[in-house]
């Protein structure tokens, strides 16, 4: 039993952080989110060359063949720098193909995801935002050996960047008769709409599917039986997003601690006042606690999958509550400059708001944990 990171994992963290400090510091991030296409294609290709886009994709398919602990390290660092990229989305799309695809599907999709020539995202939720099978109403009808999907998908990350969407839809009347398919952005009947997002380091949008034809080779896993796969994908999303949240929370805590050391009022640094330093201490307690839960959840994805639902929910529940508070308190501890566009605290505040409902909000995960204990 060991809770530490290996030397290789530590090295990965150091090199990711070094690269992001140099190439994706906050001024870069602000440039990207203020310009329209945002991050350049060349930069995205560079991330591919660094191996970040295929971290868990097997080497035979052009990836690095690492695991979820390494992904967690990567996402903590991209979260720390608020990197506005489709990394999370494309990782989840490739994870779905890796976990549920046939050998043919893996060979067809994974290399292009690892080298960055294609970007994927996932389309699970619908306008109701409810993460239960009955809330999935987009419907696939059998059409010979094909399927035709009608419906609407919401809250899709990186809608503007993704070339395809791993999409969940209903293929039967029973609650859990859910299927997963790869829907090409360019297919007839696919309409995408970008919706401005409160957190401009994240992009978001909707997908309308008007009788989109799905070939058998685009179906992921057996038809009607994909709900467990959807749940696992959501757990993976929760773990990855929580890792980003840890990085972001640490970054905004560091900024605020520094501010508390520098800003002088009543003849002393404001960090001298317990009304300032105690909330900062509480943030540290919460961030460390989230890390403990997160690392266990990340390890469980490969090391103990039966425990993943519980641990991803524990981590996301704790993190949703805590990062929300951290975002708010850090802005407040800056006084009026915290309320300005110029000061960075607001960027993290918005990220904390993005994180709160993503991949299940606190209540969703609390309900799930209660159910796992037989309480309902």
């Amino acid at each position, binding site marked *: *039993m060991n809770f530490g990171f290996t030397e290789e994992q530590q090295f990965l963290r150091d090199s990711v952080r070094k690269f992001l400090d140099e190439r994706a510091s906050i001024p870069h991030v602000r440039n990207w989110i203020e310009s329209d296409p945002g991050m350049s294609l060349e930069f995205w290709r560079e991330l591919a060359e660094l191996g970040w886009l295929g971290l868990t994709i097997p080497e035979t398919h052009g990836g690095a063949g690492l695991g979820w602990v390494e992904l967690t390290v990567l996402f903590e660092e991209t979260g720390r720098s608020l990197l506005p990229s489709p990394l999370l989305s494309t990782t989840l799309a490739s994870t779905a193909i890796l976990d549920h695809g046939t050998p043919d599907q893996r060979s067809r999709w994974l290399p292009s995801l690892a080298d960055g020539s294609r970007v994927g995202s996932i389309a699970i939720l619908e306008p109701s935002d409810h993460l239960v099978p009955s809330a999935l109403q987009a419907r696939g009808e059998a059409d010979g050996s094909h399927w035709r999907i009608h419906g609407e998908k919401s809250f899709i990350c990186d809608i503007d960047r993704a070339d395809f969407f791993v999409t969940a839809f209903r293929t039967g009347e029973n609650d859990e008769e859910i299927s997963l398919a790869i829907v090409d952005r360019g297919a007839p009947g696919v309409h995408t709409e970008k919706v401005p997002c409160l957190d401009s380091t994240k992009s978001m949008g909707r997908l309308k599917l008007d009788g989109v034809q799905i070939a058998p080779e685009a179906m992921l896993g057996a038809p009607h039986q994909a709900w467990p796969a959807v749940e696992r994908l959501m757990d993976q999303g929760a773990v990855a997003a929580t890792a980003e949240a840890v990085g972001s929370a640490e970054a905004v805590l560091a900024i605020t601690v520094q501010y508390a050391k520098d800003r002088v009022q009543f003849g002393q640094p404001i960090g*001298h006042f317990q009304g300032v330093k105690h909330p*900062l201490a509480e943030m*540290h307690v919460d961030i460390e606690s989230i890390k403990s839960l997160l690392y266990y959840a990340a390890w469980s994805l490969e090391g103990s999958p039966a425990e993943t639902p519980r641990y991803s929910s524990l981590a996301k529940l*704790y993190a949703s509550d805590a990062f929300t508070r951290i975002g708010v308190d850090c802005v407040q501890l800056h006084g009026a400059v915290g309320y300005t566009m110029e000061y960075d605290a607001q960027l993290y505040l918005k990220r904390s708001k993005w994180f709160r409902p993503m991949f299940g909000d606190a209540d969703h995960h609390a309900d799930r944990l209660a159910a796992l204990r037989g309480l309902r």
Partner: protein
Amino acid sequence: MNFDLSPDETAFRSEVRRFLDKHLPDDASHEDPDFLESWHAALREKRWIGFAWPEEDGGAAGTLMEQFILKQEMATRNAPPLGSDFMGLTWVGPALIAHGTPEQKARFLPDLLAGTSSWCTGYSEPDHGSDLASLQCRAVLEGDEYRVTGQKIWTTLAHEAKWIYMMVRTDPDARKYRGITCLLVPMNSPGIEVRPIPNLSGVTSFNQVFFDNVRVPVDNRLGEEGQGWLVTMAALANERIGISESTEKSDHLDRLIELARTAQRKGKPASADPTVRRRLARFEARIEAMRLNELRHLSARLEGSAPSSETSLNKLLRGELEFEMSELSLEILGTAGLEEGPWQRAALNWHGTIIGGGSPNIQRNIVAERILGLPKD
């Protein structure tokens, strides 16, 4: 990052389970003195009291991970504690191992492990609580004896203990931290008077202790003169670990969930209310975070770091948790919570445990100042 048990750890866990099968009958009562005696004898034979202590000090030289496994398994089966002298085993013993002379170790450790000595801790004084380093209880060296005069207060179990591990001021002119020394003093020494103080539940758990020219041989000094603060920093960290163990909170949560399932609120079990279930889930998240924080800190210690400020994290988590859990139990019980019972006792006792070992504000100061580097008060 690997939470699988190693083959050795798995073997050790099986050994613990076999031990429990053999020595912990389902109907064992933690109050039954005969059972407790045979339980402690069996533990001693295994050297599982003082499990992680070096062999030459009477321990089993168990690894920290094995110790974690041992405690988890014991807790899962609701076993009585590993040894009866909590303070002695949790911080006095480790302080002796770290700072004691060979003679002192030989003199104190065997009794500690056998449970025949019992220890209390003399830090706080009437005018010196949170600001512990300003303590004034005076010890003056005369020949090969110290003469101790002054007071200690809130001394848990002083009315039962045979020994007190205490901090005294030996040099009033040295800087605050430098003038402090640790002494190990028999409670039956002439000149010691103990006055019990009932707590708000009416129970006597702590005391005021008066020292009037108490003679303490210089051999009973732990560490060098003036090194008492150093000795005690580690002891305080061990205390925070000892009083913030997650196993105790998981047990508390199990009982609370049982209460929520069975107690009726407005004609339905309390657990039918989704807000109750969500509060329970949030407790679970924090308790599991405490457990994994413990494990993470242990992993860091395997790399060589000693327990220190990070132990304040779980002390803070525990304090808030215990409060919120107690509040929920009383809310669920409603008026029935006014009738004498374990939930009521737990809710009242919280007011002591939140302060003992250092108040939450002091823990926040430790985190803010020593970990985040913010200015000192």
